[in-house]
């Protein structure tokens, strides 16, 4: 008797367990409409309330507005922090369960998703809407295009400047350098006085690459790095080699914080925020720290200015208004979405509203043109937005344009270039080899 009972108990226990497992898998199946008969749009984004409150609130407000205007739509959000988001998106993609709307990065990131036939082209949103058509800053939307079709619409744009500490510059009677020769002179005076000229988090690779990319842009002209990606130029072009050599010249001069190749971007940033380093080449995502952020003392903010990366004497890139930068995140619509039409409509709406709100509410530079006349902004924002409208070119970050494997190698090599573990010749050669492997 006991025997039977035990068996029965166990069998039922296992059955319950199996049911629970089955329940997990079936709950993720997509429904077209919810209980009220509204159409459900699933929207996954990467701005949690805790870490990106301003962005979170803008998105939430825009969704509320949109739902008020469109009574038949119900937008459900799922929010993850950026790292988790990347992982989850990959998992969802491999089981073909992408949300209707999600966020993506440009170029190298979006490509596998497009090639896996998972995203819907979004050109029709832009074509249909005259307001939207001319509003993007030139060249930004194109970063999300594969074979001439745009699969993502950008929200953010980041460009890089040299930020500097005006107090330190005044102390040593330094002027903002307009040419690279002047810049080297600034470096020399600062090192002679025991001040760290510039801080850079070379461990992470990408912050160090800013220096390399700008030098390549100034020496080889504004299209050189993009040409390399497209196969129109080689990475061992003499101008690129020259750029790598100039990076190491700066390292040899003591132009960067000691041991930079072991510092992460955040650690390196500390040297600038503590006023130990005079300059920091970074992108506009740091702007809140120099303008609006309540966590940074006003005294410090008042000391910070910025300048455009200097021109290189005899280089091909003669326009100081050419920037290195890149779009941040953009929005995609899943190809298999059952509410594709509605999702596209919302994407267009969100892009427009985001452009109006993001600068003031979040301090983020949107990828769309901003009318500053009616805004109460700190002077640094107004100047930078003005710069952007005058920008002759924005070269997308080399590592963003490259495939993941090339980008990773590039990061490693730039770190090694700053740490002097490779010389400029090996630096370009290893790039050439990896790029050649890819084009095979």
């Amino acid at each position: 008797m006991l025997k039977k009972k035990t068996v029965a108990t166990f069998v039922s226990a296992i059955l319950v367990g199996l049911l629970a497992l089955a329940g997990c898998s079936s709950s993720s199946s997509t429904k077209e409409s919810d209980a009220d008969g509204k159409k459900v749009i699933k929207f996954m984004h990467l701005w949690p309330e805790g870490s990106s409150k301003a962005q979170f609130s803008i998105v939430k407000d825009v969704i509320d507005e949109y739902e008020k205007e469109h009574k038949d739509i119900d937008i459900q959000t799922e929010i993850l922090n950026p790292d988790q988001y990347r992982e989850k998106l990959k998992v969802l993609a491999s089981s073909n369960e992408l949300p209707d709307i999600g966020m993506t990065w440009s170029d190298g990131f979006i490509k596998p998703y497009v090639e896996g036939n998972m995203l819907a082209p979004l050109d029709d949103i832009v074509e249909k809407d005259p307001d939207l058509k001319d509003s993007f800053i030139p060249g930004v939307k194109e970063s999300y295009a594969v074979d001439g079709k745009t699969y993502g619409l950008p929200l953010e744009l980041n460009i890089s400047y040299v930020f500097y500490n005006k107090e330190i510059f005044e102390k040593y009677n330094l002027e903002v350098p307009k040419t690279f020769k002047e810049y080297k002179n600034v470096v020399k005076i600062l090192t002679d006085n025991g001040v760290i000229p510039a801080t850079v988090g070379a461990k992470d690779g990408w912050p160090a690459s800013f220096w390399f990319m700008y030098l390549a842009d100034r020496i080889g002209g504004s299209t050189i790095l993009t040409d390399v990606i497209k196969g129109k130029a080689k990475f061992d072009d003499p101008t690129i080699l020259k750029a790598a050599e100039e990076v190491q010249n700066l390292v040899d001069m003591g132009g960067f914080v000691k041991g930079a190749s072991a510092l992460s971007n955040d650690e390196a940033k500390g040297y600038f925020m503590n006023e130990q380093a005079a300059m920091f080449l970074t992108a506009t995502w740091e702007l809140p720290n120099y303008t609006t952020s309540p966590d940074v003392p006003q005294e410090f903010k008042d000391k910070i200015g910025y300048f455009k990366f200097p021109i290189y004497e005899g280089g091909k890139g003669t326009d100081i208004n050419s920037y290195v930068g890149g779009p941040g995140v953009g929005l995609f619509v899943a190809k298999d979405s059952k509410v594709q039409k509605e999702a596209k409509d919302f994407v267009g709406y969100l892009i427009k509203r985001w452009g109006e709100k993001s600068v003031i509410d979040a301090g983020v530079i949107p990828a769309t043109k901003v009318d500053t006349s009616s805004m109460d902004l700190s002077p640094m924002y107004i100047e930078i937005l003005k710069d952007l409208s005058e920008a002759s070119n924005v070269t997308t970050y080399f590592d963003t344009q490259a495939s993941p494997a090339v980008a990773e190698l590039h990061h490693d090599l730039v770190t090694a270039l700053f740490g002097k573990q490779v010389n400029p010749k090996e630096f370009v050669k290893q790039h050439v080899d990896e790029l050649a492997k890819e084009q095979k």
Partner: protein
Amino acid sequence: MKSVMSNKWVISLYVLPSLILILLLIYIPIFLTGYYGLMDWNGIGQMKFIGLENYIELVQDKKFWQSTWHSLLLGIFSTLSLVGYLILSLILASKIKGANVLRKIYLIPMLLSSVAIGQLWAKIFDPTNGMLNRLLVLLGVENPPLWLADSNIVLYALFIPIVWQYAGFYIIIFYAALKNVPEELIEAAKIDGASPIQIAYKIKVPLIAGVIKVMVILAIVGSLKYFDLIFVLTGGGPNGASEVMASYMYTEAFNKYNFGYGSAIGFGLLVICLVMTWIIQKLLSSKENVDF
């Protein structure tokens, strides 16, 4: 009850839940890793079967063997550090004053998460503002080493926090084993006029040889698959100078989107761990026989 337990069906029912869990969570993933290693796959799109290509590449990959060497070096260091832990535990177990407090102090690093330890040591190793170099400058060293930025010393600099991190774990196990050594044996030795060092070396250590053997295997296998602090502190850099097998696998799979090749590395790691464990067991089992 006896009749229940002798029924094979019931026995297999009792075993079933854990068997399913082990299969689902351990053996099937291992099998899958080996299988993915046969693929050219970026983790998102279609998998393409390429046979043994990844494994052939792996055997010829200098970077992989370099990272294997780094992992082995870490294994050797961890094993050597066991001697230090054993000495500390012997002192702690010999009824000195405050042994309890000291034991708790040694255990603290174990209670911190690896990421927190990483952040802590990043601050200590910082080339200009770090505690270590500040101290060296105070002591008159003019150009203190750059620790994590110098490719010649980065690996050894990393071993320090790793050894420190696990000290508490090994000490507490050695301590527990030593406490189990029968008091009569030690007293008998004392009466025979053995010195404390002789007691430790001739009586206590041989009696816990079994535990020591397990600790050696744990230290070496743990080192071979070690990942946390290296990932947090250097990410394998600069220029691969601190790359170990697990961090190399991570970089290939998650940063370069080479899931196929990353899986092959993972499988290689498993094979190396198994071989090492087998070698160590062979080496140690012959020794044990001499001691008793």
